[in-house]
C-alpha cells in the first residue's frame, strides 16, 4: 500500500513537472511582454506550439544520420528524468535514492552532449557554431555548478538532493555567507545553462548571437517539439532546484495526508510564479553580452562557488 502511494506521488511529481513546463515558459514570455508594454501571446501558447509542431511533417536533411533522429528522444528523456528527480512539493520520494545532485548534473551534461552532436551531424556551419559555443559555455558552467554543489554537500553532509532539501527546510541552517554565495553562483549558472538573456537570447534567430537555436536549426516537426519541451523542462528544473535548495518553505517532508500535499503544491506553484517573474524582470532590464564576455561571467560564478567552499572549509560557522 505504502509502495503504491509512493509510486503515485512520484508519478504525480513527474507529470506535474511535465505539465507545468510549457506553462512556465509561456508565463516568463508573458511577463517579459507585459514589461515591454506589449500584449504578448496567451499563456497557453507554448502548448499550442507543441501541438502544431507534432502535427507537422518531419523534414530531414539528406545528410542526417540515424543519430540525428534518435537524439531528440534521448535529450527529452534525460532532461525529464533529471527534472523529475528534483523534489518539487515533497521530499523523500520513491526515486530519491537516485536523486543525487551529481547524477542530475551528469544527466543534463549527457543531454547537452547529444544535442551538440546533433548540431554537428548535419554538417551545416550554423550547427557547428552553435555546438562549439554551447560546449564552451558548458565547460565553464559545469565546474561552477559542481563547486556550488560541493558547498551544499559540505553544509548538509550529503549530495542526496532529498536530504539536502530536508536539511535546508529544518531550522538548523541559519543565514550562511557560503549559502548566499552559492545561491548567487547557482543563479548565474542557471542563466547560462538555459541560454537566458545575458548569455544567449532564447527569442532570436539572429545568426551572429544564437547558441541554442543554432544547434536545433535543422530540426522540424515532432523532433523540434520534443526539443522545445526539453528546453522548457530544463528551465523549470533549474527554477525548482533553486526553490527546493534555497527557498524550501512549504515543501512537505514527512508522509502526511492530502491537505499537506495541497499546501506543498500550492507553495511550489507560488515559488515558480515568483521565480518566473524575477527572471522576466531580470531579462528585460539587462542587455545581451558579447560571446567573448561569457567566460568572465561564468568565471565569476566559479569564483563564487570556490569562495563559498573555501569559507566553509576554513571555518565551520560560515
Amino acid at each position, binding site marked *: 500500500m505504502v509502495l503504491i502511494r509512493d509510486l503515485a506521488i512520484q508519478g504525480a511529481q513527474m507529470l506535474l513537472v511535465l505539465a507545468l513546463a510549457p506553462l512556465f515558459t509561456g508565463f516568463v514570455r508573458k511577463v517579459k511582454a507585459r514589461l515591454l508594454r506589449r500584449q504578448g501571446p496567451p499563456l497557453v501558447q507554448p502548448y499550442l506550439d507543441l501541438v502544431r509542431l507534432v502535427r507537422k511533417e518531419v523534414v530531414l536533411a539528406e545528410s542526417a544520420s540515424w543519430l540525428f533522429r534518435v537524439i531528440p528522444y534521448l535529450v527529452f528523456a534525460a532532461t525529464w528524468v533529471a527534472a523529475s528527480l528534483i523534489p518539487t512539493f515533497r521530499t523523500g520520494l520513491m526515486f530519491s535514492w537516485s536523486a543525487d545532485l551529481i547524477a542530475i548534473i551528469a544527466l543534463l551534461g549527457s543531454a547537452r552532449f547529444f544535442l551538440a552532436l546533433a548540431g554537428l551531424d548535419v554538417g551545416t556551419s550554423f550547427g557547428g557554431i552553435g555546438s562549439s559555443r554551447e560546449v564552451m559555455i558548458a565547460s565553464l558552467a559545469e565546474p561552477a555548478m559542481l563547486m556550488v554543489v560541493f558547498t551544499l554537500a559540505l553544509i548538509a553532509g550529503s549530495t542526496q538532493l532529498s536530504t539536502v532539501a530536508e536539511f535546508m527546510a529544518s531550522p538548523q541552517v541559519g*543565514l550562511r555567507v557560503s549559502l548566499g554565495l552559492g545561491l548567487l553562483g547557482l543563479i548565474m549558472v542557471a542563466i547560462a545553462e538555459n541560454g537566458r538573456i545575458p548569455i544567449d537570447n532564447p527569442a532570436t534567430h539572429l545568426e551572429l548571437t544564437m547558441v541554442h537555436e543554432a544547434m536545433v536549426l535543422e530540426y522540424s516537426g515532432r523532433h523540434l517539439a520534443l526539443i522545445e519541451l526539453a528546453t522548457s523542462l530544463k528551465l523549470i528544473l533549474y527554477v525548482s532546484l533553486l526553490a527546493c535548495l534555497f527557498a524550501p518553505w512549504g515543501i512537505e517532508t514527512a508522509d502526511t495526508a492530502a491537505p499537506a500535499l495541497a499546501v506543498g503544491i500550492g507553495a511550489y506553484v507560488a515559488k515558480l510564479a515568483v521565480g518566473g517573474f524575477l527572471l522576466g524582470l531580470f531579462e528585460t532590464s539587462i542587455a545581451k553580452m558579447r560571446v567573448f564576455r561569457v567566460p568572465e561571467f561564468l568565471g565569476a560564478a566559479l569564483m563564487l562557488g570556490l569562495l563559498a567552499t573555501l569559507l566553509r572549509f576554513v571555518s565551520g560557522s560560515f
Partner: protein
Amino acid sequence: MSRIDFDVAHLLAGTLVLISFLELYQDRLYALLNVYAAHAFVLAASVAWQAYVQDAPHLYVTAVIALAFKAIVIPVTLHRIIAKLGIHREIEKVVGVGTAMLAGIGLVALSMVVMLRVTHGADPLAREDLAFALSVVLLGLLMMVTRRNAVSQVVGFMSLENGLVLAATGAKGMPLVVEISVAFSILIALIVIGIFLFRIRERFDTVDVQALERYRGERR
C-alpha cells in the same frame, strides 16, 4: 549573543567581501562608482547592526557618517570629476578579470588563514569579522594595484578604508573621536586627490598613471 545576531553580522560582512569582488569585476567607471556606493551602503548597514548588537549608540553615528559621506558624497563627487574629465567611456585594465579574481580568492584565503590562526581564543564574532575586514582591505589594495586609471585607484583606496572601518567596529570599543577624524581625513584625501587628478590631467592629457611613470623615466 544569539544565533541570529551572529548570522546577520556575518552575512553583512560577507556581502562586503562579495561587493569588493564586484568592484574588481567592473571595467566601466560609472558602474564602478555605483558598486562602490553599494559597498559603502552595506558597510553602513553592517556598522548599524553592530551598534544594535553591541548596544553601543555611538556606532550609529559611525553608520550615519558612512552612509552620508561614503555612500553619497564621495560617489557623487567622483561622478562629477569623471564627467568633467570626460573619461566616462574609458575602459582600463592592467590584468584580465580572471587573473584579478583568482588573485582576490588567494588574498581572501590568506586573510582567513592568518586571522583565524592569530586570533585564537577571541570572541568568534570579532574573529571572523576581522578575517572579512582583512579580506576587504587586501582586495582594496589589489584593486589599486590592478588599475591604471587614477579614479579607479581612488575607489580602491576608499574601499580599503571601508575594510578598516569594518575591522574597527567588529572589535569592540573604537572611540567616536577616532572614527570622526578618520572620516574627515578620508574626505580631505578625496579633495586632495581630486585636485591632483585635474593637475595630472592638465599636465599629461590623461589620468592613466602610466604617463607618470614614463615621465619619471621608469620603464620604457
